[in-house]
């Protein structure tokens, strides 16, 4: 790795959570495991304990050396069933599949006979949440270690049973085999009648990526058949006997407070329960139609908090309203400084300065937020779609002033999230209504609620200044991001003099995590500006990047994308333009080339072809990775061209799919993906980083086609105005 990456700094811990989650959690007593798992072999991975402890054959685990923090556990039952427990969750990124591949690989066991129990706070180990592309680099590694340790244990058991040495024994397809005697024994036989409990040895050798047989190959989505037949149960599909449907009475604008409320008419409706608790007003009824009717029958007046900023003055507002409280301390926002930008600018052959902006955009997961809550005395169970089941458990415990161990949050594979399902408001709403109704209540947000009361990807302003030497070397680089965030803010280009800063602002709208988060904004500004500088230096944009870039991995993706794309080819069509953008984030390297066609009469911009080269270390599931890269490009295309949350005075003006445009079939270009498989580098996550290249690639292509430089995302919400 080059010095650019080694010197990576963190200006702000990423804003993955709107509010800090509880830092404490309660442990599961390991003796409880066998109660619900039955006999067999249990392998536990402790985060801090490195004692390798094998409890031998029959008997219970002792409390000695019990780990204080557990990352994952795996159980092999007497029936041969392998169950793996992880607090990570499946939101469509297909980690249920890729994690199963890792386990199957190390355990030498068929993938379709492995079950992953995910994101159930009663059954799975504590986990902070599924975000930041951390599942593949951390959980995949941990589960592989657990599986390798289990396999190691099974070999030991077979050696003991056969009274032979263990070194020559091999594991294969659920059996331990002695190649010398041709004996074999099934895993299920080895664990029969036993309660074996093993901590993970400190260093368990894992199978190198170059020798993978199951990982490294494309694997179909686990349980795919349930999804194409409509049988998969999403959180929204959960049902309990006697369940009521809940509906929340929302304020008419952000920041509004309750002026008066009259619930008497709603309360007269048969089968309706009305809850008024502080500013919370909600109803629960036997069906959705009645709940909607009851909510409408609540007569309520709100006192608006006005005036509030609107789209029109947003960027000015963000620059004029700095805050210092978005992170742990002010020192986190100290700018990164290297050399002297002032001196370098003074002596530069050419100086340039530009401002870029990005709008608030919505996650718009197709499955809206939903929760079903059930109380039993002081115990609460909630089924909900969330990336942070343990965080939601904490929110519920806090809201109802009950201990966390009284709360169980069950997360079923949900209808996507993209960073948008970190918070537990829907769970709290359902639980509040269920407590009053004394029966289970489901709260399902409408699309309008989803577009209004969820949080958004932050809007932001980026100011960039650079100095160029006469040979096209960048000598000075100054970059400031207002509000949108610090991820991906540092430049990977080799520039001797830099000053880079992130400046949190008072956001007029509720904002939070999003796929790629600020890396999209920072890459848009940086890679658009790189294109501008290349034109200033009268250099080809690829050659200009490579001249200023030493990092081999990043050079490799730029070169691979350009080669596949046919970079440098002569234009053949009127209105055609090409551009590129790329970068490094979350241990993944991406470069995207785009071709656009601009109809100069109508202003219509069509992205016709996209090539993305991506490298994230050793690839676990190649087709799953392609799917993520294609999807990231398509989602990124929406934010690049037309997605934007419109708001005025505390109200969202386009809270519907008919008013908020997302990419549809006809918007989709031909997408080609080049995967660079680096088996010598640990696997990194890929759900986010592939999204960062497309916006600058499209913007640069529009400039190439028309000479018009677009510096605000979305770039052409209403077509391109060339005059």
């Amino acid at each position, binding site marked *: 790795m080059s010095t650019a990456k080694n010197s990576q700094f963190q200006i702000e811990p990423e804003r993955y959570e709107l509010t800090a989650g509880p830092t404490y959690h309660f442990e599961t007593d390991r003796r409880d495991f066998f109660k619900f798992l039955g006999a067999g072999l249990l392998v536990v991975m402790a985060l801090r304990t490195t004692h390798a402890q094998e409890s031998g054959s029959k008997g219970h685990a002792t409390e000695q050396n019990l780990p204080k923090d557990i990352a994952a556990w795996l159980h092999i039952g007497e029936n041969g069933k392998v169950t793996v427990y992880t607090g990570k969750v499946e*939101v*469509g*990124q*297909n980690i249920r599949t890729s994690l199963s591949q890792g386990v199957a690989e190390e355990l030498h066991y068929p993938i379709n006979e492995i079950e992953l129990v995910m994101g159930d706070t009663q059954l799975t180990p504590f986990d902070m949440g599924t975000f930041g592309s951390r599942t593949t680099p951390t959980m995949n590694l941990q589960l592989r270690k657990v599986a390798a340790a289990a396999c190691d244990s099974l070999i030991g058991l077979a050696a003991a049973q056969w009274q032979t040495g263990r070194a020559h024994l091999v594991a294969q397809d659920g059996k331990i085999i002695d190649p010398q005697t041709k004996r074999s024994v099934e895993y299920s036989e080895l664990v029969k009648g036993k309660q074996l409990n093993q901590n993970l040895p400190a260093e368990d050798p894992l199978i190198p990526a170059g020798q993978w047989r199951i990982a490294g190959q494309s694997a*179909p*989505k686990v349980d*795919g*058949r349930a*999804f*194409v*037949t*409509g*049988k*998969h*149960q*999403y959180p*929204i*599909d959960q*049902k309990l006997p006697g369940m009521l449907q809940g509906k929340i009475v929302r304020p008419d604008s952000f920041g509004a407070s309750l002026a008066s409320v009259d619930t008497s008419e709603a309360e007269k409706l048969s089968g309706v329960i009305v809850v008024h608790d502080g500013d919370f007003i909600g109803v629960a009824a036997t*069906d*959705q*139609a009645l709940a909607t009717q009851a909510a409408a029958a609540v007569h309520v007046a709100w006192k608006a908090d006005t005036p509030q900023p609107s789209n029109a003055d947003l960027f000015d507002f963000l620059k004029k309203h700095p805050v210092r409280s978005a992170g742990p301390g002010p020192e986190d926002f100290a700018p990164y400084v290297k050399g002297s930008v002032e001196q370098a600018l003074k002596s530069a052959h050419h100086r340039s300065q530009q401002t870029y902006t990005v709008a608030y955009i919505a996650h*718009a*997961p*197709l*499955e*809206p937020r939903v929760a079903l809550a059930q109380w039993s005395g002081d115990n609460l169970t909630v089924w909900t779609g969330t990336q942070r089941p343990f965080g939601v458990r904490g929110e519920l415990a806090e809201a109802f002033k009950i201990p966390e161990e009284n709360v169980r949050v069950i997360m079923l*594979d*949900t*209808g*996507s999230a*993209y960073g948008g399902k970190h918070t537990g408001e829907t769970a709290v709403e359902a639980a509040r209504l269920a407590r009053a109704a004394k029966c289970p209540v489901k709260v*399902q947000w*409408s*699309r309008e609620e989803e577009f209004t009361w969820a949080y958004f990807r932050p809007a932001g302003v980026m100011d960039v200044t650079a100095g160029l030497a006469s040979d096209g070397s960048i000598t000075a680089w100054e970059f400031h991001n207002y509000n949108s965030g610090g991820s991906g803010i540092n430049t990977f280009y080799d520039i001797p003099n830099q000053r880079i800063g992130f400046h949190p602002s008072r956001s007029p709208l509720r904002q939070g995590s999003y796929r790629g988060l600020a890396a999209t904004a920072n890459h848009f500004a940086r890679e658009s500006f790189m294109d501008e500088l290349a034109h200033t230096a009268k250099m080809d944009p690829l050659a200009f990047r490579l001249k200023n870039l030493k990092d081999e991995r990043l050079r490799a993706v730029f070169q691979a994308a350009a080669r596949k794309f046919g970079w440098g080819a002569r234009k053949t069509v009127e209105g055609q333009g090409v551009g590129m953008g790329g970068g490094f984030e979350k241990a993944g390297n991406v470069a995207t080339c785009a071709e656009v066609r601009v109809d100069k009469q109508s202003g219509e911009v069509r992205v016709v072809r996209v090539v993305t080269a991506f490298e994230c270390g050793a690839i676990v599931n190649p*087709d*799953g990775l392609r*799917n*993520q890269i*294609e*999807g*990231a*490009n*398509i*989602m990124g295309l929406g934010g690049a061209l037309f997605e934007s949350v419109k708001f005025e005075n505390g109200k969202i003006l386009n809270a*519907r*799919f*008919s008013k908020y445009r*997302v*990419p*549809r*079939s*006809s918007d*989709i270009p*031909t*997408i080609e993906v080049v995967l660079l498989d680096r088996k010598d580098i640990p696997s990194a996550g890929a759900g986010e980083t592939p999204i960062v290249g497309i916006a600058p690639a499209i913007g640069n292509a529009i400039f190439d086609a028309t000479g018009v430089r677009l510096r605000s995302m979305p770039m052409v919400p209403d077509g391109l105005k060339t005059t």
Partner: protein
Amino acid sequence: MAKITQIKVNGTALKIDADSQWTLLSVLRDQLDLTGTKYGCGEGQCGACTVLIDGVAKRSCRTQIGLVGDNEVTTIEGLAVGDHLHPLQQAFLDEAAMQCAYCTSGMIMSAAALLNSNHSPSTDDILQAMEGNICRCGTYPRIVSAIQKAAKAMPAPEKCS
């Protein structure tokens, strides 16, 4: 308000107890436990709730149950024949044309309606037919491939002599 007491779904007449103005979506999901059909927007814009009514794609979130009458409703649960998947279901699996798969039921039903009326659609035909279905995960290119694959796998309708 008029009560509706029966609809025909997936080849069977089923008893329901619904006001005529309720949506077909709510009846399918809340009364008949046919939860494969999804809520996505409630305004007919995302296609997650798509079902077939007499073979034609309809948005069940915008279809009042009172207007369904004796017409045959087909949902995602009614496409496979026993364990034998419909060619579209198989093609969606083969092409991995899904991520979170929340849109998949609606996608498959919209595609089924297309193939009912056009057994060898062009790419443009497919794009046009699927324009009303949102896949927020962005698996559109795979969905188009899956529909093309299914079209080839399905027997062509008998030609009139």
